[in-house]
């Protein structure tokens, strides 16, 4: 089934990117997380009419895409999930907000149009920033960053386990639906009569697997607590990276 396959290949693709040996990948995950969140925060905090200021924020994704050797088109594909809702909401602005701002020849630019463009730009920039983070930082490294900021181990472990078993269960779900569609070639999805048993089988198997996982943990000394090794150390490069971007974001916001 295409959706399952697509999800699988997307996971593998992002994983390959995140595990490249690049300068951006080597930056400390916590530093990248902080920079990403502050970038998104600064970006969305621009006023809805300050198009000029917002455009300058494009410096960050532009620089990282070029210097980090990442594909811009790959990132744009990810917009298709977020952009529809943003567009739906943004498209109404020109109707509600018709205050003329300036004329470009015959065409009158209204405040609503500007706010629509800024909203879309915010949507695009924030998706690009998140892409830059995940394309250079694996989920494991992000979990490592979460541990440093004292997110409880129970939550971090749960995220790691979910991530570990996603590809496995996607493959299993793929096999089940493949086996189904081979015997029901004319159907697009899963017929309602077997909604329950198809997903239910997968659920019970997942439950059994979690039991086996628990046994494997218990046999290796697990008693309800998780311990992790030392976190990656901060280096001067990481501090420099953090300093450069945070100064730049502050400057771009203030100018």
């Amino acid at each position, binding site marked *: 089934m295409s959706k399952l396959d697509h999800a699988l290949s997307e996971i593998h693709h992002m*994983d390959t990117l995140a595990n490249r040996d690049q300068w951006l990948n080597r930056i400390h995950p916590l530093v990248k997380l902080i920079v990403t969140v502050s970038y998104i925060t600064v970006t969305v905090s621009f006023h809805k009419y300050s198009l000029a200021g917002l455009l300058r924020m494009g410096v960050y994704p532009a620089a990282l895409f070029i210097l980090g050797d990442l594909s811009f088109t790959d990132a744009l594909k990810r917009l298709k999930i977020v952009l529809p809702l943003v567009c739906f909401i943004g498209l109404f602005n020109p109707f509600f907000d018709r205050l003329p701002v300036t004329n470009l020849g015959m065409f009158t630019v209204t405040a609503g149009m500007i706010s629509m463009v800024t909203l879309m730009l915010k949507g695009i920039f924030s998706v690009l920033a998140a892409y830059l983070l995940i394309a250079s930082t694996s*989920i494991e490294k992000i979990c490592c960053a979460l541990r440093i900021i004292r997110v409880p181990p129970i939550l971090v472990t749960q995220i790691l386990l979910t991530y570990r078993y996603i590809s496995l269960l996607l493959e299993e779900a793929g096999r089940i639906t493949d086996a189904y569609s081979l015997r029901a070639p004319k159907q697009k999805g899963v017929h309602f009569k077997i909604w329950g048993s198809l997903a239910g089988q997968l659920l019970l198997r997942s439950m059994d697997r979690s039991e086996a996982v628990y046994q*494997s943990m218990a*046999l*290796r*000394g697990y008693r309800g607590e998780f311990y992790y090794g030392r976190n990656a150390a901060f280096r001067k490069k990481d501090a420099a990276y953090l300093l450069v971007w945070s100064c730049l974001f502050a400057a771009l916001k203030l100018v």
Partner: protein
Amino acid sequence: MSHIHICLEHVNYNYDTSCPVLKNITFTAHEHDAVGLIGANGAGKSTLLKLLVGLNLNYEGSIRIEDIPVERNTLPVIREKIGYVFQDSDSQLFLSTVKEDIAFAPRNYGLSEDEVNHRVEHALASIHIEHLRDRQIYKLSGGEKKMVSIATILSMIPDIILMDEPSIALDPKNRRRLIHILNQFEHLKIIASHDLDMILETCSRVILLSDGEIIRDGNTMDILSDKELLEAHGLELPLCMQDVDNLIHVMYPRQHS
């Protein structure tokens, strides 16, 4: 006389009251023993292995590991002594990278980070998979996963190794490697499998289980060459012996038909 590591006396076990899964199991195993646990599907091989590590506790009779009875409150001690390799590596390996997973047990035992690293390196080196150290688990092949599963229990430095169908889903080359590794271990090992060719190459002693009972316990060659015995309990001669058997048939047709 070597030290007795595993001692079972009159062990009975049932999942529910209706049908017994294991009946009157009695055997001992010593240091450096290599025991093959064979039997058809549903004979009780996995159940027996799980009893030894206390994954199933409400059994009757006595199970002692190095003279410690297997009970709820002795489980931490017992599990430190035993390494259990699951049939399904994907359930065994639940962390994201090879190194993290191998370090899981030593970290749970409260070892220092240096000692943990030392154990990880030692486990990787002893089965020659140092190159897999930083790999992600889901990207490993089936054979690699099996090797890493073994490494995750070697980092515990166990006295006893239990393996449930270790050669299943391995290609010939990986299977050969596995046999080589198994023969290197000096630990007491119990290998449950119906891959009798592998048992033949790795174990000196075989316990034949059928319907939850020990049918025969003895020398590997004696049991694995007994065609009638094996076939009566849902098994077949190991492939290498089938060739010999066929040859005998061709050479002395009258005596064997």
